[in-house]
């Protein structure tokens, strides 16, 4: 386009981006910050932001069609899931992906895409074990007297039990009821090879089993394995705990304490306590995620936090404050978080506006070094379970279990072939497009000077064909959606054919310009890019806007 007559054009650049800051304040924006990102995350390697993987129901047993509905009538909440890797006596390992739904205990076969109810109601009855049909189930892998770890299962309502990987066969083979353990509240944890947890009946007490023997310990007179929270500073009950190699961290609603020292019978007196925070705690024990020496959690006010040692950082909340304010803060006890390693993000499942279950994922990434909020993932409906599993190749896979008996697996963002999923499939196996939104920060923010914004230039990552929409907002108006089509010319290494594809490149950068019109004027401009097409991926690297200063008006909005 030819230049304007006698005007100096400013080029306002945004990107590459490292984080999201959803502050509605035009003057605090900067070029490396996005205002909003929906269903996007920063690619750990390439510097672009890419669309999240899609998901499809498990149990399709053929790669298509409806998934398998778990649970039983009236009890369809997916209560929990984990992949437990068991070391066998000969040194080999066996992986079990466990799903509990509606009080039923299943294992999932990744190769066949089928579920097996490995322990039936008869098995539980045979061992006098009760498994609640609706409550969230927490898993902990713990050592046992057999010399090999077993899976500790706690539903927060009944006495926990162990599972060793066997099939029940109607006799409850593989199940061990932990009759000496009290009912535990929330997620148990391991410390000094002992299972620890908060007593459900007295949440001022933390109890533990014996080292590599979760069948004994706890409140048994011979052991008296209990730490009583003195409650001098905060008498509120414990909501969560987590054990690291360095310390135990115990969380009340709005305070946190750490305890270090060997976990033995003298622990209640020899454990060294240190205040971590007098104001910050958690509402959900499942929101605690330990990642590379740092604990990530969502506090009782919905604010994302991370904690290195005894120092709590509130950066994540300051970057996500507006998003946090929209959550149903009265339902934070349902929050669950996972370390989604393949995408390099930690995901917090949170209840969206007016939702009683999780309906939204808030993402945190360490791609730029320090943890930063990187937007939200949505479009799932509500879900009751969020988990990381390992597929048949041992690759981490993100799982989401809904309240209707279906578990969905997400695609692998890093691999090719059948594990690539770029749409969200319903329980019936019908694909819906994922809505990707990338909103760079406010551009041109000024106290009184108005600009006419002329055009936007954006660079996209065309892993596939894309139909991209662009729009903007100014203090004066909102634009229509401008649409353009991009042909993806790159192809992934190993899938390319000589002479037919651009060989060796999985990514092709494509530039597109968007012409702005008469409404693109004001003190600032907030551009936005959207994508929503079945079968397509979306990625974006950076953008800029050309603008000219036009006036300073005393009544500029």
């Amino acid at each position, binding site marked *: *386009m*030819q230049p*304007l*007559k006698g005007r100096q054009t400013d080029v306002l650049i945004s990107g590459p981006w490292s984080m999201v800051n959803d502050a509605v304040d035009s003057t605090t924006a900067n070029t490396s910050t996005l205002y909003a990102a929906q269903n996007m995350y920063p690619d750990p390697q390439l510097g672009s932001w890419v669309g999240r993987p899609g998901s499809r129901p498990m149990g399709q047993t053929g790669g298509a069609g409806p998934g398998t509905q778990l649970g039983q009538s009236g009890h369809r909440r997916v209560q929990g899931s984990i992949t437990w890797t068991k070391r066998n006596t000969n040194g080999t390992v066996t992986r079990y992906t466990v799903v509990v739904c509606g009080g039923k205990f299943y294992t999932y076969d990744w190769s066949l895409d089928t579920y097996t109810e490995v322990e039936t109601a008869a098995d539980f009855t045979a061992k006098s074990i009760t498994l609640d049909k609706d409550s969230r189930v927490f898993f902990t892998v713990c050592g046992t007297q057999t010399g090999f770890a077993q899976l500790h299962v706690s539903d927060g309502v009944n006495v926990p039990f162990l599972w060793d990987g066997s099939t029940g066969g109607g006799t409850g083979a593989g199940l061990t009821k932990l009759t000496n353990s009290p009912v535990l509240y929330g997620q148990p944890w391991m410390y000094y090879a002992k299972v620890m947890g908060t007593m459900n009946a007295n949440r001022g007490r933390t109890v533990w089993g014996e080292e590599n023997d979760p069948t004994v310990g706890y409140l048994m007179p011979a052991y008296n394995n209990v730490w009583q929270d003195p409650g001098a500073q905060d008498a509120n009950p414990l909501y969560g705990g987590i054990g690291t190699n360095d310390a135990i961290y115990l969380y009340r609603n709005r305070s946190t304490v750490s305890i270090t020292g060997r976990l033995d019978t003298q622990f209640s007196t020899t454990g060294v306590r240190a205040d971590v925070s007098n104001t910050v705690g958690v509402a959900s024990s499942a929101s605690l995620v330990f990642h590379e020496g740092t604990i990530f959690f969502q506090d009782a006010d919905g604010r994302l936090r991370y904690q290195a040692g005894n120092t709590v950082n509130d950066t994540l909340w300051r970057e996500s404050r507006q998003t946090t304010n929209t959550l149903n803060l009265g339902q934070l006890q349902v929050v669950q978080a996972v370390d989604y390693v393949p995408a390099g993000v930690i995901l917090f499942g949170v209840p969206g506006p007016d939702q009683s279950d999780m309906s939204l994922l808030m993402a945190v990434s360490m791609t730029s070094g320090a943890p930063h909020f990187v937007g939200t993932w949505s479009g799932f409906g509500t879900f009751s379970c969020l988990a990381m599993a390992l597929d048949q190749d041992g690759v981490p896979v993100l799982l989401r279990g809904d309240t209707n008996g279906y578990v969905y697996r997400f695609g692998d963002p890093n691999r090719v072939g059948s594990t690539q999923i770029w749409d969200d499939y319903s329980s019936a196996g019908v694909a819906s497009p994922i809505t990707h939104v990338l909103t760079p920060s406010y551009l041109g923010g000024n106290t009184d000077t108005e600009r006419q914004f002329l055009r936007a230039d954006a660079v996209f990552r065309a892993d596939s064909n894309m139909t991209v929409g662009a729009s903007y907002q100014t203090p004066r108006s909102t634009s229509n959606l*401008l649409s*353009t089509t991009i042909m993806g010319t790159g192809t992934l290494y190993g899938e390319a054919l000589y002479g037919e594809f651009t060989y060796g490149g999985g990514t092709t950068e494509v530039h597109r310009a*968007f*012409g702005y*019109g008469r409404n*693109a004027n004001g003190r600032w401009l907030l551009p936005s890019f959207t994508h929503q097409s079945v079968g397509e991926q979306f990625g974006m690297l950076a953008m800029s806007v050309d603008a000219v200063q036009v006036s300073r008006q005393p009544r500029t909005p």
Partner: protein
Amino acid sequence: MALFDASDLVTRTLNLINRPDADEAFTRTTTNDVLYQYVSDGQRRICELLAWQVPEVSYEPPTQLISSDNGLTYGFGTDSDGNPILPLGQIELRGDGPKGLPILPGNDWDDTTLVYLLDTNASTGYPVIRWPGQRTRTFANGLWCRYVKPTLQITSSSSPVTLKPFLCRELIPYQAAVSCATQLDMDPGPYQSQFDARWYEILAILKTQKHGAGLAAFPNTSGVWWKRGVY
């Protein structure tokens, strides 16, 4: 997209001013509605220039004019948008059928109905043919006219482009680009220059082709221009 249809003219205009594919600069209500307006304005201007310089090339086929006041006035009717038609430039009027004798323009003080006046109907305000001194004149086989009809609005890709002759449609994008540049505060000069250069070339073609046309109706002239010596 056919050559010089509405979509083609819009695309050519966008190419001239080098706008992105995704562009809202010329959209107020529907996509590129402002641009279609500029194309429409360009068509109208070129039609008027042709009517001024070489109206014969843009004449409609002979059309019968209808009187609703017993021969006092004859109207040109309304276009498909319902607007009254004002013939552009010189018209060619023939009495008593399309093969009737030509009727030449005159003055209101002429004491005859052998000449016509072009003015407006007192009640409707529509352009009409009238006879001097409020006379009436009727024709057994009707009053017929050849004239340049103003072009219609081009509002979308499906709108017909009516500018005649066909080759003149090439000029429309240049004129539309001038409007675009003016709107965007760009320099319209380059597009005006392109319009001017091509306009005179096309005009020369048409002038040569139609030189002296219509003069056969005038006394002491010949319709064969090369015998006439002077223009």
